[in-house]
């Protein structure tokens, strides 16, 4: 299957996200077509300056996607996901806003006419791929691998309500289905400090300590993330004194290990907290 893909500004420099996503997608026959000439979504910044500017940013990338024939856009970053999804909602529900955006797009010969939907690339990998490919790698011994799923903000929130917002089970259910043991912990959707981490390193350290120390008590072998900024903050601040160290991977890197994809294609060497103990444990599993 082919999909339009919005990489976002952090995709290329993140710790092996691009490499591992490409590797896993090729295994699953998913082709991600980068939207040509996409621009920054404005993240959590532009919406605080001007609504018109922030909608223009989204509309430009949407129009480029429409031009290539796709109205469904995938992204792998939580901030892009929520920013674009919010904009798609505004643009489709308010004709005046759409017209205003199109007025400015005209100078580049672009126009947005269709309704755009945004999905996290994880949703497609989990829900739209053939089960037999996954099943052929199933191994009961994987139940010895303890995974702490970390969603961060902006995937569940502000979209889901009730327990699904703070205590989601989506990634847990999928990984358990593959044979992994998903540990329960209370920091699944706790903030990593996001863009506030750099100017407030003390707060970021406290938040990351709360995540890492919490999952360590649950004997987690790895933390699995779905967002470049979450991965960066959680990985980086664990190198600070007095914080437990647990390898912090992208979900695609864990899936790569599951599929036994060559390690050099997963970018695992870019992680600050070494994933060696996890890799070794996974390689030494005896099938039960």
């Amino acid at each position, binding site marked *: 299957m082919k999909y339009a893909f919005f990489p976002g*500004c952090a995709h290329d420099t993140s710790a092996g996200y691009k490499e591992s996503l490409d590797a896993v997608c090729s295994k699953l026959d998913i082709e991600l077509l980068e939207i040509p000439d996409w621009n920054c979504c404005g993240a959590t*910044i532009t919406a*605080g300056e001007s609504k018109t500017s922030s909608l223009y940013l989204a509309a430009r990338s949407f129009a480029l996607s429409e031009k290539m024939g796709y109205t469904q856009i995938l992204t792998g970053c939580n901030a892009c996901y929520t920013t674009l999804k919010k904009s798609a909602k505004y643009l489709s529900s308010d004709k005046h806003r759409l017209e205003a955006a199109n007025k400015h797009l005209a*100078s580049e010969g672009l126009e947005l006419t269709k309704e755009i939907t945004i999905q996290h690339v994880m949703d497609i990998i989990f829900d739209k791929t053939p089960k037999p490919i996954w099943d052929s790698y199933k191994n009961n011994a994987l139940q010895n691998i303890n995974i702490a799923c970390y969603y961060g903000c902006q995937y569940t929130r*502000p979209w889901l309500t009730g327990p699904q917002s703070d205590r989601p089970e989506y990634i847990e259910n999928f990984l358990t289905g593959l044979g992994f043991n998903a540990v329960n912990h209370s920091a699944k959707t706790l903030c990593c400090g996001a863009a506030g981490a750099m100017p407030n390193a003390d*707060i970021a350290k406290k938040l990351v300590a709360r995540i890492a120390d919490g999952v360590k008590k649950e004997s987690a072998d790895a933390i699995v993330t779905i967002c470049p900024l979450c991965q960066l903050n959680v990985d980086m601040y664990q190198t600070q004194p007095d914080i437990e160290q647990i390898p912090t991977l992208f979900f695609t890197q864990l899936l790569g290990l599951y599929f036994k994809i060559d390690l050099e294609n997963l970018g695992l060497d870019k*992680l600050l907290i070494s994933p060696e103990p996890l890799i070794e444990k996974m390689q030494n599993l005896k099938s039960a």
Partner: protein
Amino acid sequence: MDKENLQHLFFESEPGKEIRKCIQCGTCSSSCPMTDAMDFGPRSLFALIRDGDMEAVINSNSPWMCVSCYQCTSRCPQEIPVTELMYSLKRIITQTKEKTQSNKAKDLHRSFSSSLKLFGRVTESFIMAKYSLKHPLTGLSSIPLAVQLTKKKRVELKMQKVGSPFKFRRSFKHLR
């Protein structure tokens, strides 16, 4: 702009009038990961807005410290879109060009923005460098972490940009 006008502007902004529903329970402030670094947590901030103390509001670092985690929004018993109100405050401060006290989080916003406006995409090293010019101490204290990331080939020095930053800039600067 005088206080009454700013308060009026806020209530008229989308979704400003929602704070009328606030019961001052403090669920937002106790859910917020950044409260410790804010001059006022969201609950106090809303009380100040309703009291009309707009000077304290626009000079506080609070809206800029918000990282959009939406914890407040999803937990508010009155279903007030707290995060959106923070965006609304930032827009009012930006668009009225009010002179306000400088703060670290606002400077980070501005650094991000200038990378975006120049190139259509943002580059982390550019944002860091620009921010460090204003806050050399934070810049210096981030060096050890930056070195670690560089060793792992996770720092991009080349600017990421759209195909024609010139055309992008031309369209973008006319937006309000």
